[in-house]
């Protein structure tokens, strides 16, 4: 038995095994970092996501309804690793300094009421967006400061367009896989220190 996750990739919805989801997430995040310096990087990413969704679609049949790790590995080998895709030599600066599992604030277009600022902040801090909306509303009533702050944030915060950005917006969700990873890392460090 395996846990599955439900995702939206390039406009298609998929049920995907948790390990396959982690692998896909890692790949998309790497791509995102790789194209970070590029003009219209989010457009490139969403084009790639659309193509991956199209390929993954062909892996599903009436009998097989869940995307597995093998499907994801295959689609990644078709699309290619970031270093094979880009014609830039070597890693970009951003790639060197950016940590995996980055957590950034975006505007969330999926749950927006006006511009997605409050829903984005809610996703970032993992609190209900309506709490932030109430605060903004109160500030807006008391002299209009809320409106000004809202407008500034609307301009400053980018919209989360790609899957990788949406994951980054929420940070890494706590799940079995993450816990296993961090435990393994811990174990490796201890082993290295003890020179076993």
């Amino acid at each position: 038995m395996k846990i599955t996750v439900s995702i939206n990739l390039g406009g298609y919805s998929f049920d995907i095994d948790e390990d396959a989801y982690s692998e896909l997430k890692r790949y998309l995040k790497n791509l995102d970092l790789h194209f970070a310096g590029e003009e219209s990087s989010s457009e490139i990413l969403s084009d790639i996501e659309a193509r991956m969704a199209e390929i993954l679609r062909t892996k599903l049949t009436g009998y097989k309804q869940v995307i597995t790790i093998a499907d994801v590995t295959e689609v990644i080998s078709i699309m290619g690793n970031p270093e094979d895709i880009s014609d830039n030599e070597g890693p970009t600066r951003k790639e060197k300094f950016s940590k995996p599992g980055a957590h950034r604030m975006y505007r969330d277009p999926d749950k927006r009421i006006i511009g997605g600022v409050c829903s984005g902040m809610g996703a970032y801090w993992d609190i209900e967006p309506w709490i932030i909306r109430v605060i903004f509303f109160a500030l807006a009533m008391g002299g209009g400061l809320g409106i000004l702050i809202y407008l500034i944030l609307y301009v400053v915060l980018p919209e989360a367009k790609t899957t990788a950005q949406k994951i980054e917006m929420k940070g890494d969700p706590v799940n079995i896989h993450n816990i296993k990873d961090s435990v393994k890392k811990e174990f490796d460090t201890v082993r290295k220190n003890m020179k076993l």
Partner: protein
Amino acid sequence: MDLENTKAQMRKGILEYCILSVLSKNSCYASDIIKELKEAKVIVVEGTLYPLLTRQKNAGLLSYRWEESQQGPPRKYYELTTEGKEYLADLDNSWEELVESVNLIRTR
């Protein structure tokens, strides 16, 4: 010297030209372009196409329109702009020149 690397560099150089040539026949969506490029063996990993398409679009060589699809979400159909057609004509010439030059050297 690394043979694979040299080959990859050669392919990279002509890929941009090939994309424009594919689109000169009719407007296509990315997966059609991929199919042609794969059949012609000028592309290895599919991901290479997307940054190039976006760059060509930003440079004004291509434009795209969204078209409904029966099988899923709307698709992006790319086509050459007037500027793109001129650019391609220029590349056609320099390709012919290159082939001639290489042939000249090889057969001498």
